[in-house]
């Protein structure tokens, strides 16, 4: 690890961090994406602001029917939190699917979300959960929906000097089944395709369907056509197959060494069918 020279500051409070970030610092959370890039000198930040020492960013708590996940809560703390497992099992499942144990022990919710890797696991779940991202900047806080937060590959609505303060997800209502399924890329563990599903039943019908897809294209997205097809249906195997076939509708799939666009699209439908089936069986 021989990066370019950089300054390093570890503020104790978010207010302190805001001042430093305004001066042009680069926020460091778990560093699971940033550090490897610095190692190769592909990233050459001049000043790292380590958010890891800010105690009031590392929390998972429930308030008013929602779970609040602090930016520096690690993936493993989300994965293993009794609260998250009970109240928002989809998020716990997505966290548990990230990388490997070492990455999950260090990587953070805020870091992952702000990095907006198109193959990260969280975006699928956050889209399906219609999560809110609370952003802190020098001028104060603003809250945006996951749908608005992710703009393109590695591109979010975060402005310079802003950081993710927390992620807010709803407490899952009774009668909702969820599932996250992915095919990991064998080298990196990132999703070749990952599908997050929430399904609620009522009166013999699917009353709510939320499907988030990651890995397929430049951005984790909600598969609206598939959701619409599923909602109101009886949720039979046939209904599920039909809906799953729609998850790639209108999507410009990416292609790389590990999976062609054609295969990725196929996998998205397969994993969607499996995740919907699994979620529906729990609903």
């Amino acid at each position, binding site marked *: 690890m*021989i990066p*370019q*020279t950089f300054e390093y500051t570890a503020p104790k409070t978010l207010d302190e961090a805001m001042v430093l970030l305004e001066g042009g610092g680069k926020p460091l959370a778990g560093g699971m994406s940033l550090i*490897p890039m610095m190692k*190769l*000198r592909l990233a050459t930040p001049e000043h790292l602001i380590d958010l890891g020492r800010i105690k009031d960013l590392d929390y998972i708590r429930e308030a008013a029917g929602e779970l609040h996940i602090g930016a520096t809560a690690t993936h493993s703390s989300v994965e293993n939190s009794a609260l998250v497992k009970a109240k928002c099992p989809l998020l716990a499942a997505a966290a548990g699917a990230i990388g*490997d144990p070492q990455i999950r022990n260090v990587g953070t919710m805020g870091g992952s979300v702000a990095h907006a890797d198109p193959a990260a696991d969280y975006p699928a779940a956050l889209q399906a959960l219609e999560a809110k991202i609370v952003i802190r900047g020098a001028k104060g806080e603003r809250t945006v929906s996951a749908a608005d937060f992710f703009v393109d590959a590695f591109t979010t609505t975060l402005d310079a000097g802003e950081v993710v303060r927390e992620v807010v997800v709803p407490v899952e209502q009774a009668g909702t089944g969820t599932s996250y399924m992915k*095919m990991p*890329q*064998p*080298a*990196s563990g990132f999703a070749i395709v990952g599908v997050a599903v929430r399904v609620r039943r009522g009166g013999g019908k699917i009353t709510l369907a939320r499907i988030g897809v990651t890995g397929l294209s430049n951005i984790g997205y909600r598969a609206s056509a598939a959701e619409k097809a599923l909602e109101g249906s009886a949720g039979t195997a046939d209904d599920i197959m039909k809906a799953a076939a729609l998850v790639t509708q209108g999507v410009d799939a990416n292609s790389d*060494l*590990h*999976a*062609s666009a054609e*295969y990725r699209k*196929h*996998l998205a439908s*397969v994993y969607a069918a499996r995740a919907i089936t699994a979620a529906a069986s729990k609903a």
Partner: protein
Amino acid sequence: MATTIIQTEKLVGKRIRRREDPRLITGTATYVDDIQMPGMHHAAIVRSPHAAAKIRSINIKAAAEAPGVVAVFTGKDTEKVGPVPCGASLPGLRVPHHYILAIDRVYLVGHPVAVVVATDRYLARDAADLVEVEWEVLPAVADPEKAIAPGAPPVHPQWPDNVAFVYHQEGGDVDKAFAEAEVVVKQRITSQRLIPSAMETRGVLAEWRGADRQMTLYTSTQIPHLVRTLVSGMLGLEENRMRVIAPEVGGGFGSKLNVYSEEALMGFVSMKIGKPVKWIESRRENFLCTIHGRGHVDYFEVAAKKDGTILGIKLKLIQDQGAYHQLLGPAIPTLSVLMMPGLYRTKNVRAEIVGVFTNCTPTDAYRGAGRPEATHGIERMVDILADELKMDPAEIRLKNFVHNEEFPFPTATGLTYDSGDYAAPLQKAMGIVDYKKLLAEQAEARKQGKLMGIGICTYGEICGFGPSPATPAGGWECGTVRVEPSGKVTVLTGSCHHGQGEETTFAQIAADELGVDIDDILVLRGDTAIVPYGIGTFGSRATAIGGTALYFALQDLKVKIKKFGAVLLGSPDVSFANGQVTCNKMGKSVSFKEVAAASYRAMKLPPNTEPGLVSTHFWEPPNFTFGFGAHIAVTEIDPETGQITVRRYLAVDDCGNIINPLLVDGQVHGGVAQGMGQALWEQGVYDDNGQLITGEYTDYAMPRAHMMPWIQSEHTITPSPVNPLGVKGVGEAGTIGASPSLVNSVVDALSHLGVRHIDMPMTPEKIWKLVAGGKN
């Protein structure tokens, strides 16, 4: 004097935990990078980002003036340093002059062009970015078959056809065999480039002491003595004035069975600046600048009778050599040819190797070195033949094996298989997995539309490299036993283990022979100043040759121990066992410790005997040893995604006598993991411009623990007659057996869809396409 006899428990054959493990798992072992020296400088190497380019100019001014920088050297400065050596000699071999720093042209991405030396590693790295190279980018070629096609850009302009060598080998009457054949099967089979990925990257620390005219070179290598001989030659330094030390070496897998430019470069720099200088390879450099393995395209043809009898084999082997020959590169595919008949009796073989230059990292020995490729080829071909003839893959193998009464068996390629019972491991494996039941289960699964495969590989491997005439640098090994005056025992071995565990197994051998506690034995290796000479650890040779050298040194020593014991007891009629020299007639014994003390005190010497208890033996083996075995892999395939699940993996290996079953298990597990890596995940992929696009672990899929199935390791034991320990070798067996058994298994799962062959790695997308398309 005590008369009690201590009955020492024999340690050979016991599952003894590795004595090297505590320091390794507590992070206290000393690797090259852990060594610090007063005045030590650090080097960073500037490398080409292009696969082929002319160097128009190099401007080192800014780098030379950067903080902490003491020197910058380019190819002009190092031109007179000897070339990076190629130890392989084949008729007509074209050997490009391999400068340690490029002079006016680069041939691969990562080609070193300058070295920046600074007082601090970070400053050296910063300054390396300031070296300005003006390039004239040239067209590159990265695929060996494209490289030999007409019109390909020449890698080395002096050889426009990109052919490094053509090598023929033939045995028996191949044309007759093919003329008489009732069936001929043909297949193109590739063995992709692999990146060895030792956990410790390479590293070199050179310390030149000009006043003494002596150099110490610490380097992460499998072959310290050969490095000394060759690197001292490159530097024009007398061999005896260089000391090479391989401290703890964190894995090699063949990638450190080499002599690299950086070893000479650090020596050069240290001599120039008069200070110690260290270079530690980054992981990125390791991907680009340390040798790769495999890189074959094989065209196989097998002639057979309808009853499955193999009559002859033809092979055209295209070996991707990369841009240069490293130490053994061109010799590696010749090992594939030697083993191309596998365990089968056929005496008619013909092989042609075309070694091809590409603008890629040189290929050389990687765990198995030629034998995995050979085994993969013949074992795939036997399955293809079985499929053609609608025969059972086990049956066709049993039909063609060398018979037990034919050993020692001269092969069509000129080898002599030492001993074997080739049917035994296969039959044992079939029994363990209940082969018939598996076949029935598979038939049932197919009815339900499920994809399940059973894959068999039987392999033979050349171990114990090797008799000297068959090797480029001597094939013997050296063992020294030095009993200290206190009775503690120091074993010095020319084997240079780097994770294999010889500190344990060699201590077991010595403890048994001398009847002393294993904790009284220290095994040292890897330092040319303390070990008389050595060839090194590679080619499944350490125990078979280094262990045997040690064994003979121990026998010599035992004779001397008896002589000293006889003097102490005052009777010539003595025996030595269990750490005691005993005169039965007198009913008296002296302990090993007492003998050791007396030998150095030298109050009374036995006739014609020197003081001290030291013995050295150089052992030259009369033959290779030939390990063999049978692996069975059971796989299931998800038809929707193409994902492969290895449901069961069984390895039945015959490595002769086993010194430590725990370590043999470890070797088999690690070897299978590497073979599985090739079969399922790993691939060194270049784009058309010669850029390595699997150049970090984000894209190069190393097998990891959570990806591994349970591996069952079993054995049959056929002692080798080649050495008194009866051992063969097992370091590479797992790798050799794994890839064919896995590919055979997956092809078997899809055979009813018309699939006959799948090239590695068997990625889910490839399998999905085959399931969807139903053809190969």
